[in-house]
């Protein structure tokens, strides 16, 4: 199995720069996935006043969920990565917005999968500080 650091993140989700809000998969287990991302002016859309906007942070959480799903499809099931859609954000809490150049570490906790719908919890950290949380549901496009 490839080390996580050798996996190009673009293999795991369809979004491309400048609308890609994930940089690397750091860890994957059956229960969680850990993803890093450093927003930068000029590299990413959805930057405002030197910070990643709330919309950008939400997109980051959604893309982290997509990375988890993409890794599961490609490296566990050995199937093509499917297109997914975010169905719902719930319990969104944003304590602060990250500045350009600050590295986020986001953990996606798998809660439940029923049919093609996946429920995960997301925790976004900046160093030791928990800066955002949400519960989100995604649906995979049928073949």
């Amino acid at each position, binding site marked *: 199995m490839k080390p996580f650091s050798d996996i190009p993140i673009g293999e795991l989700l369809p979004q491309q720069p400048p609308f890609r809000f994930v940089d690397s998969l750091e860890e994957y287990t059956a229960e969680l996935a850990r993803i890093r991302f450093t927003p930068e002016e000029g590299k990413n859309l959805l930057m405002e006043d030197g910070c990643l906007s709330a919309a950008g942070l939400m997109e980051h959480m959604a893309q982290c969920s997509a990375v988890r799903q993409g890794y599961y499809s490609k490296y566990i099931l050995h199937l093509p990565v499917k297109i997914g859609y975010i169905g*719902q954000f*719930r319990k969104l809490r944003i304590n602060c917005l990250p500045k350009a150049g600050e590295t986020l570490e986001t953990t996606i906790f798998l809660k*439940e999968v*029923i049919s093609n*719908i996946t429920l995960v919890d997301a925790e976004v950290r900046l160093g030791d500080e928990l800066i955002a949380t949400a519960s989100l*549901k995604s*649906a995979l496009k049928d073949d």
Partner: protein
Amino acid sequence: MTIDEIYEKVNEFLVEDLEIEESKISEDARLKEDLGIDSLEVVDVVVLVEEQFGFKMKPEDFKDLITLDDFCKFIANRIG
């Protein structure tokens, strides 16, 4: 656990976790039409029932559950 305690727990997670307006919740409220518990919400309900009542519902269990009363009685039957 009494049926009243089940209603109380269910009401609590409908309001706090599913963010359903308390005014919409009643024993005869229909899960889908009145409370908006559709196929997307069923995933949350499965997780919440497992956390709160200790058993795992299957999606097909929802087929025969029309009202909140049906849902609470289903839980009562499952947990004995």
